[in-house]
């Protein structure tokens, strides 16, 4: 099936297992239970799902949720073409038909009514109701739903409803332990081990500031960005300022403090 091909991962994505999450995900997949990935931004949730899709040999359909994402965007809609109305599957319908892993990234960003359409898919019915077509689509055994969610957001509108979250097996993600994180940064950015370690140290310093002026500390992803710049020959301090400090804050005082932390580490 040609369509399936476009959702297949061709190469093994790099992922370093941390604490049994791979086994948990596999067990959930075998038992057809959907999974909720919790954790701060940029700690490897998306990469994990990619890795699992590759490992389980399933196609992966990823949807990055945003606040204008409607139920129709996910399920599908009629389009008009050459005087005919033609039904076009949305990513969710397509994933169900393919028996893929459907990954809804940052689910809380989507409109509240949208999260409700995943409910029948996420419990033991495992069905998708296509209201407009009057069709009920039953998910094949290989299909799996995974959603991600960052509990650290300070917005009352970005909380996951109990009725949604209680359908999932949750896997908690956090930044990896320092040695593991340094290995990941070195491997992903191509920088040397010493620089990677320094970057991880810097990240820990910024994570100490969470709740003290920063909403989040530097994520592994930001470290990889900084590492890539450094590997390209950008001076470490400039790289950290651009890839980490300015990405974390706009406030002058905070930027000055971050700059002092950067210059302490390098």
């Amino acid at each position, binding site marked *: 099936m040609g369509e399936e091909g476009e959702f297949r991962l061709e190469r093994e994505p790099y992922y370093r297992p941390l604490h049994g999450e791979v086994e948990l995900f596999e067990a959930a997949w075998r038992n057809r239970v959907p999974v909720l990935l919790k954790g701060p931004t940029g700690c490897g949730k998306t990469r994990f799902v990619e890795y699992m899709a590759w490992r389980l040999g399933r196609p992966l359909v990823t949807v990055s949720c945003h*606040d*204008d994402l*409607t*139920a*129709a965007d996910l399920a599908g*809609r*009629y*389009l*008009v073409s050459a*005087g005919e*109305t033609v039904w076009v599957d949305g990513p969710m319908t397509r994933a169900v038909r393919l028996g893929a892993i459907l990954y809804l990234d940052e689910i809380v960003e989507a*409109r509240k009514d949208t999260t409700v359409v995943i409910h029948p898919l996420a419990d033991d019915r495992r069905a998708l109701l296509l209201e407009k077509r009057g069709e009920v689509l039953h998910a094949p055994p290989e299909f799996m739903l995974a959603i991600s969610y960052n*509990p*650290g*957001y*300070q*917005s*009352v*509108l970005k*909380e996951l409803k109990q009725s949604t979250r209680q359908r999932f097996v949750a896997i908690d993600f956090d930044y990896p332990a320092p040695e593991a994180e340094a290995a990941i940064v070195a491997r992903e950015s191509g920088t040397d081990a010493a620089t990677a370690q*320094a970057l991880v*140290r810097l990240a*820990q*310093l*910024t994570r*100490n*500031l969470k*709740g*003290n*002026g920063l909403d989040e500390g530097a994520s592994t992803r930001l470290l990889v960005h900084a590492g890539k710049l450094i590997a390209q020959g950008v001076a470490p301090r400039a790289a950290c300022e651009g890839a980490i400090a300015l990405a974390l804050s706009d406030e002058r*005082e*905070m930027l*000055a*403090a*971050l700059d*002092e*932390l*950067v*210059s*302490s*580490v*390098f």
Partner: protein
Amino acid sequence: MSSSARYSEAAPGAAEPPLGAAELERRLEELVGAVLSSRRTAAGISQALSASSRELQDFVLQWAAVTAKSSPELAFQFCGLAPRAVGELGYAGAERWLLAAIDLYDREGLHRAAAELKDLAAFVERAREGAWGVEFGAVAGVLETFVAGLAGRRLKLAPAELAWTDGATVYLPRRVALFASRAQNFRVYKASAALLWAQTRFGSFALAPADYPDAPRELELLALLEALRLAARLEHDLPGLYRDLEALSQPAPGAEFGPARERLRAPGATVADSLAALRELPASARAPDWPFLGALDPARALAARDERIARDKQALRAALERWREERGDEGLPPLDGASLASGAAAAPGEVKRLVESLLQDLGELPEDCLAPARESAEQAAAEPPETEDDAHALRYDEWDHRRGHYRKDWCLLRERDVNPGDPAFVAAALERYRPQIRQLKRSFEALRGEDRRLRGEPCGEDVDLDALVRARAELAAGGELDERLFVRRARHARDMVALFVVDMSGSTKGWINDCERHALVLLCEALEALGDRYAIYGFSGLTRKRCEVYRVKRFDEPYGAAVRERIAGIQALDYTRMGAAIRHLSRILAREPARTRLLLTLSDGKPDDFSDGYRGEYGIEDTRRALIEARRAGIHPFCITIDREASDYLPHMYGAASYTVVADVARLPTRLAELYRRLTA
């Protein structure tokens, strides 16, 4: 509150004629009448001022009003000196001169403040030197964040004559002007802060008091040896910081320090090595005078440490007890010091923090803090008898964390109206923040929710039948098929109510109260543009029988003159018994029909009350409980605090994701509305 712009803004007013001596005297008497008498009048000052420009007169009157809130005496003295100060320093400089004196007044009282004010020449001198000198106040924010980043235990920063630390507060000099460049002077501040942080982090005070010398010369040398040891300790993890310290370690210590240096570079060197090295130094050894070195005061640091250990132990016992309760006994791993210390036990953040703090002080966890907390003795304060009036008050439960259950109907709460204040206050705030208000209104208008069905869209949830019929007809008539045939629903409406709770406790007196009121004015203006339903209440109280909640704006009241006057009338009253106020206001908020209910509290620090042991942990736990109750009732609480001191207890009290600290009070007015926007966007 830099406001040189304000006086130039008032420039059209400069065309206004200067005030006469009589009018000036009348106004001054209004402001500082309290310190005037028949022998000491404002006549002389008024006479002198009457010859000045209207702009200068306005400046003096305005700042005299501000100063008089703290001290009429200081305000009176200011009036006499102001014309000369403005002449020498300009408006902005004179403002700084006065603010420095008010600051001193808050810290050290009238005597020092008045002396500071009078010593204009010294201030002018410093202002010149200030071109490169760096003040504590200018770097405190950055350094506090910097030190928080280095982490370990949270440290407070405070100004003092010398740089030193007691292990909880890092004291830094009020001013550093050693080098002829601001950057260099800042480096000195940073190096001092980092060194003092390292002293607390790497156990400079880990030994018994008797182990430390007490002769000044020996302490000086020990400070140097510790600096050598700590710098070496930082070299691996923080090489940049190490280089900064090295660069400032001039002149290099003499050859007699060679062996000590070698010894203290060893990876596992402790303060005991520094003391051993101290004993081996020849009597002739002199510590070089490094600018960042500061002083070592083991006696005070150790006293503070003992206090802290006792406090931490008790808190840890209580925290472990709560943890046991939450998880049930069977779910809990066996509690031993080793698993807690290694972090193997997945402990709550509060436990982790206390364990970390104790480990830092003691190196290990003492067994006695793992034992369950005993019920602490009930303090049986004699209560005043109930009065008739008490029977009409509302009654609220209060959470007693030591007993682990509620005290029934413990707090008596009354609703009152705020007495109207001066409408001119709001008018002045509107004038002063005009540009910010305009900007806030624009950004809030953009948030305004609209629930519209857009027809004739190229895509959408449903087919637009009208458009389809029309299109088919056109097609049949030989036209082109229009593709815009769908109905799309645009953004759902904001269905949100918010209740703002303002701290009216005594500790908000002065600046904080002014900023709170300004913040409310800006907030109301912005919210009117947005259209969310909102209410504002204040709270204060004195003992459990006098919890008071003040109505500023009810939900069903429009934002009009009455509300504005009440905002102006918000004053600093008594204490902060937060729990009862939160419970009462949650109840009011829960009655409002809306999908999202937001309870925002604005306070300046810990919950506190005059008696019943509400101060400290009890109050924190009760407030936390009240917030949890609110959350259960479907309310989203969010707390804004202006407490820049110890934010240790904040995550526990408020819940990690639902509070924020506004460090700079002056920024509160704009921050409050911004925060609301971010919270609800």
